């Protein structure tokens, strides 16, 4: 029994006098399988409630939806609330206020009934499928199941062109076209779609979106079907469907050949998103889908055998006469379209080696239409070289009556397959139903056929094995009888259709999306005349968001999301170290298909006050063909993960963005933030005075609303932990702490592989000189002034040493910048101190490779990325003696403690002496990692829940 306790408004519980009822413990909640729901009056209430509630993960919090409150009447809001509770699976519902100090105070509220089932004798079913005479296997299949289906439902056929339909069907059933169905779809109680991978089914995507129903998926790969409309929408539509089904990582695979795109990914995610349930015909199809979609997406997937009717075949003798086959002939045949997935070349090869090749009574018929001209030519050539070419006949496409004659006339059916894409072979079942001896290989769905009913070869059989099977096979016998009874037992249309009906009814009865759709229609269809279109849209946005708190309805994007916030990068790439990290981690996440989540980059749109998908940005970032996807408002659901990767301090601080994050958290989205350092708190003198309160506000905010904080080093993790201890944060409300280390290699994608002319001239000028390299944003905490002064002292002492500074302007007083500019201007042949601002990756690489050493004089750092990059390119390291540099470089750097420029000059002189003797500490021993490894460490915390504060080291 599922029980829902409504805490009503969060504000009621925040009064300091309010106490949590002592009886409502986590044991009670778990024993009663209870869920708590609460309406947030303020975004930060959720943090306080989580600390108060004994089982915070059972608490669902949702915001106040003003658009709905302002539009709907009280009874309509009550109806909506009832639907929400029903979607939560509530059997009992109670309201709880702080005053209810004892359990017996709870008073059950009777849930309002939401009727969605109509009481009628026979439900109206719209069967959306091609029907005969359309040349489609699905059409023939539906023809077979139609009589049984019509016994249970009042069936209306939905076809593309009713005028072309078989006249018998026109007489027996109501028939409408697709346009009529779009308009009248709501008149049907049930809708059943039959999807295959051909152009006949293309419009079904739009129909399904308009009128959801249950889908029978005959082929799980739908690329050909989607691409059949390429003249209208080009490749874009296929790419869009691959994106919505499989995410950005899949799109990276789809930039070259269209055929590869079609073959690689099923692209059928929208069927799961828009339907109430999906049926496939074999376990292999289900297993293959499980390779591409997560469990949640496939939660409404069901396997039902393919229906096959045991037909009364014509008399064998008559059929042979009709087809011109001698009575004493041994007839072998393949049934189905001729294509490269049927091992036809191998079959001819095995035939040539078998005893049949020289038997004038043996015949091989290839029954079915073709489509691969090259294959047909190859087969004909091969046949002409056989000892008895007259043994072979390629019939081409045959009419149903001729097909029945062949089934009757044949002795042995050969059904070999490779590269299966989840389909069930109707031709195989026809052969078995006809009682033929059938040779198959154990491939795809055919592995599910019992061994005693067929001659089953290995999946990747040898020609020898096939030859042996041909030699052994005889005419219809015991095996054929068993095959026939197997088909009758498992695949009889009566049984299969019974399963279809059972599943359809179950879906319509239990799928929360059905209720959600009905409630939307009930509440808003009558209001279409009175409200403006935009306000209706706003209400529907609010309603879908509300229902998604109860996990009702689906999103168009398959799978749970890893929502990566890159707001700064999208709005303005500051080109700082943080953005460098963001770009590299983002790229690694996007191309990784092994996360178990789809990676979606997002940004906060301060104008609309909503998070949006950064699709336009990612499209360009990954250099993909245009996908024309709108930067929609993010739709987050339980199970998603938000990762604040970029350092956008406003997001955690400002009310609107905090509302979003807290309400996401309230529905089960995990919120994580990356913390790069605590410098403004630790070194306040190095930052503008007005920046420090902002930072403190931000770090307090992320501590309050995050489930976890991941730092970029163990040192920062310890510092953050110490900061929380100092601030005496409630231990129950603290986020987990994790850390990861940064990657060392340059960005893999640079705009040019060669140096700019100006950069080349700089390199030419410093060639052969001994110089130190200093990389990092120009900020007081980086210690630039001290290093410059030290170098100037050394130069005055006629020490041959230069300094190259690389880094853009950060938090800095104007004087330092002026000094740097002046240094650049007074640069002479003997006096090399240069500030290069921002340089290309190849230039930076050349500088690392050419320098005597890389110096990092920062008074504090989150990680010290330049040191690890320098180590990657073999440069010696000189670093200030602070804990973070010891964590990064270990014993492989020269550390200094100098407080003044003179002291630093002395220390550098010592290092220089060692350098000239080649005895300075070498950076070769520094353990650096790639960005891929760095990302894996981050993922370890964020997705796999391994935390440093729980004793797990990356």
């Amino acid at each position, binding site marked *: 029994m599922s029980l829902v306790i409504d805490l009503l408004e969060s504000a009621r519980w925040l009064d300091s006098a309010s106490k949590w009822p002592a009886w409502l413990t986590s044991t009670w909640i778990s024993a009663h399988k209870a869920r708590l729901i609460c309406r947030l009056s303020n975004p930060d209430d959720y943090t306080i409630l989580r600390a108060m509630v004994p089982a915070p993960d059972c608490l669902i919090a949702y915001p106040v939806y003003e658009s709905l409150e302002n539009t709907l009447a009280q009874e309509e809001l009550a109806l909506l609330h009832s639907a929400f509770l029903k979607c939560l699976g509530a059997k009992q519902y109670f309201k709880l206020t702080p005053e209810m100090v004892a359990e017996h105070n709870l008073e059950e509220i009777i849930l309002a009934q939401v009727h969605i089932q109509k009481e009628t004798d026979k439900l109206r079913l719209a069967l959306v499928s091609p029907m005969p005479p359309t040349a489609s296997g699905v059409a023939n299949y539906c023809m077979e199941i139609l009589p049984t289906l019509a016994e249970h439902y009042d069936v209306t056929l939905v076809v593309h062109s009713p005028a072309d339909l078989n006249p018998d069907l026109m007489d027996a059933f109501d028939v409408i076209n697709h346009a009529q169905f*779009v*308009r009248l*779809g709501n008149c049907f109680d049930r809708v059943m779609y039959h999807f295959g991978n051909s152009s006949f089914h293309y419009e079904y995507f*739009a129909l399904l*979106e308009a*009128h959801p129903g249950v889908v029978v998926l005959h082929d799980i790969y739908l690329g050909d079907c989607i691409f059949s409309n*390429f003249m*209208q*929408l080009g490749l874009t539509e296929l790419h*869009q469907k691959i994106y919505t089904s499989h995410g950005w990582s899949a799109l990276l695979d789809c*930039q*070259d*050949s269209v055929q*590869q795109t079609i*073959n*690689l990914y099923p692209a059928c995610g929208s069927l799961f998103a828009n339907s109430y349930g999906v049926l496939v015909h074999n376990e292999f199809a289900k297993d293959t889908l499980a*390779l*591409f979609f997560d469990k949640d997406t496939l939660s409404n997937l069901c396997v039902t055998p393919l229906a096959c009717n045991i037909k009364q075949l014509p008399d064998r003798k008559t059929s042979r006469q009709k087809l011109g086959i001698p009575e004493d002939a041994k007839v072998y045949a393949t049934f189905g379209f001729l294509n*490269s997935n049927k091992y036809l070349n191998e079959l001819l090869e095995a035939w040539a080696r078998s005893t049949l090749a020289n038997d004038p009574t043996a015949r091989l018929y290839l029954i079915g239409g073709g489509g691969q*001209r*090259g294959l047909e030519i190859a087969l004909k050539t091969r046949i002409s070289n056989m000892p008895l070419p007259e043994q072979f006949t390629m019939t081409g496409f045959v009419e149903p009556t001729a097909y029945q004659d062949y089934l009757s006339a044949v002795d042995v059916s050969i059904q070999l397959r490779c*590269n299966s894409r989840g389909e069930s072979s109707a031709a195989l079942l026809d052969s078995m139903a006809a009682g033929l001896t059938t040779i198959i290989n154990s491939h795809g769905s055919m592995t599910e056929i019992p061994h005693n009913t067929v001659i089953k070869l290995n999946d990747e059989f040898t020609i020898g094995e096939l030859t042996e099977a041909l030699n052994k096979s005889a005419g219809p016998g015991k095996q054929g009888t068993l095959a026939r009874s197997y088909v009758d037992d498992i695949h009889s249309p009566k049984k299969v259709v019974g399963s279809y009906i059972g599943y359809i009814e179950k879906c319509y009865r239990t799928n929360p999306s059905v209720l959600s759709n009905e409630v939307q229609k009930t509440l808003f*269809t009558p209001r*279409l*005349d*009175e409200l*403006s*279109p*935009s306000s*209706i849209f706003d209400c*529907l946005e609010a*309603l*879908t968001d509300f229902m998604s708190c109860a996990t009702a309805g689906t*999103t*168009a994007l398959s799978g749970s999301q890893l929502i990566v916030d890159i707001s700064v*990068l999208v709005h303005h*790439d500051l080109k700082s170290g943080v953005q460098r990290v963001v770009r590299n981690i983002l790229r690694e996440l996007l191309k990784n*298909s092994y996360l178990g989540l789809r990676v979606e980059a997002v940004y906060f749109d301060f104008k609309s006050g909503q998070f*949006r998908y950064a699709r*336009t*940005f990612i*499209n*360009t*970032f990954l250099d993909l*063909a*245009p996908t024309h*996807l*709108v930067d929609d408002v993010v*739709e987050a659901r339980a199970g998603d993960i938000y990762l604040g990767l970029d350092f956008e301090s406003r997001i955690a601080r400002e009310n609107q963005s905090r509302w979003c994050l807290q309400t996401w958290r309230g529905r089960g989205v995990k919120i994580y933030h990356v913390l790069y350092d605590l410098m403004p708190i630790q070194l306040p003198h190095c930052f503008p005075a007005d920046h420090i309160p902002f930072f403190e506000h931000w770090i307090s905010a992320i501590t309050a609303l995050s489930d976890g904080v991941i730092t970029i080093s163990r040192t920062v993790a310890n510092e953050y*932990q110490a900061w929380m201890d100092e601030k005496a944060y409630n*231990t129950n409300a*603290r986020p987990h702490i994790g850390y990861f280390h940064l990657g060392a290699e340059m*960005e893999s994608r*640079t*705009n040019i592989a060669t140096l700019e002319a100006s950069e080349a001239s700089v390199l030419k000028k410093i060639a052969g000189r001994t110089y130190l390299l200093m990389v990092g944003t120009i900020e007081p905490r980086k210690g630039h002034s001290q290093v410059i002064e030290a170098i100037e002292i050394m130069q005055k002492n006629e020490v041959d040493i230069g300094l190259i500074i690389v880094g853009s302007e950060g938090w800095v007083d104007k004087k330092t910048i002026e000094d740097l500019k002046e240094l650049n201007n007074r640069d002479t042949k003997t006096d090399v101190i240069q500030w290069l601002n921002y340089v290309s990756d190849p230039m930076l690489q050349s500088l690392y490779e050419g320098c005597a050493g890389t110096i990092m004089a920062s008074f504090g750092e989150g990680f010290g990325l330049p040191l690890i990059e320098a180590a990657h390119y073999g440069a010696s390291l000189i670093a200030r003696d602070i804990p973070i540099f010891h964590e990064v470089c270990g014993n492989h750097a020269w550390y200094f403690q100098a407080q003044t420029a003179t002291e630093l000059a002395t220390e550098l002189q010592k290092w220089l002496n060692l350098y000239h003797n080649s005895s300075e500490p070498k950076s070769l021993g520094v353990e650096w990692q790639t960005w891929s490894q760095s990302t894996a460490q981050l993922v370890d915390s964020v997705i796999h829940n*391994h*935390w440093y*504060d*729980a*004793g797990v080291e990356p």
Partner: protein
Amino acid sequence: MTLRQQQHSPAQPEPPTANADGLSEETLGELLYARREMLRWKTIAKQHEEHVRQLDANSPWLYALIRIIPKIKHHWKLLLLLTVGALAMLPILPLILVVIIFPKGRKLLWSVIAQITATFPGWRIFLWSLSEKIGASDSVLGRIWLRLMKGRGLGRGEYNKVEPLVYKRPKNNAREAVISNAGQRQWHLLQQLSPQTRFSLQDFGLTRQRLIQDSEVRQLLSTSRAETSLLRIVLAKSATEDPATVYS
């Protein structure tokens, strides 16, 4: 264990759960990944095998032409223009050949052609699709097309120069919706849908007036669930009003 670790001890990572086969979730995940990768590479390998087979058959262009002829009629103007353009280019072909000898000349030529094709996004997509459909990536000309049509990325640090694609839904006022008749009202409501959704509904005759304007990019797609909800409630209304009418 530190004090901090003790505070969080209940939240320590749970030991991996084992399934009936005795495999942990993590191992199952790895197996799934391995199977998917195997399928992926097998498919790619098969793709290449077929590619080679097609080349051996030596008639991809002719075969492709036969396949696309029925569809060409929709874009005959463009093809005519291309043919005329190609003919007009003939006299200056030697000059172009000289220009493309030099790297800067090639760069110039690419940018000019890319600029021209970028001006007509609809054509650009059609040409891209056409070259893909006819398997032109096998040929030099095909490779030229693919290079021209491929999204041209920006340099490092330039990603944010891209203007985000946000579909600005029309903000009608209530009065406009009230005064219009049922058909117009439906049209106004459907304008809240992104262009591609409207384009896919266009041929179903929901409204007299065209659902999508020529000036709109028909590929533009929103994945918002509110759009789907809106479509469903609009159609629920239309089923009750004048169910026999289909504007086709």
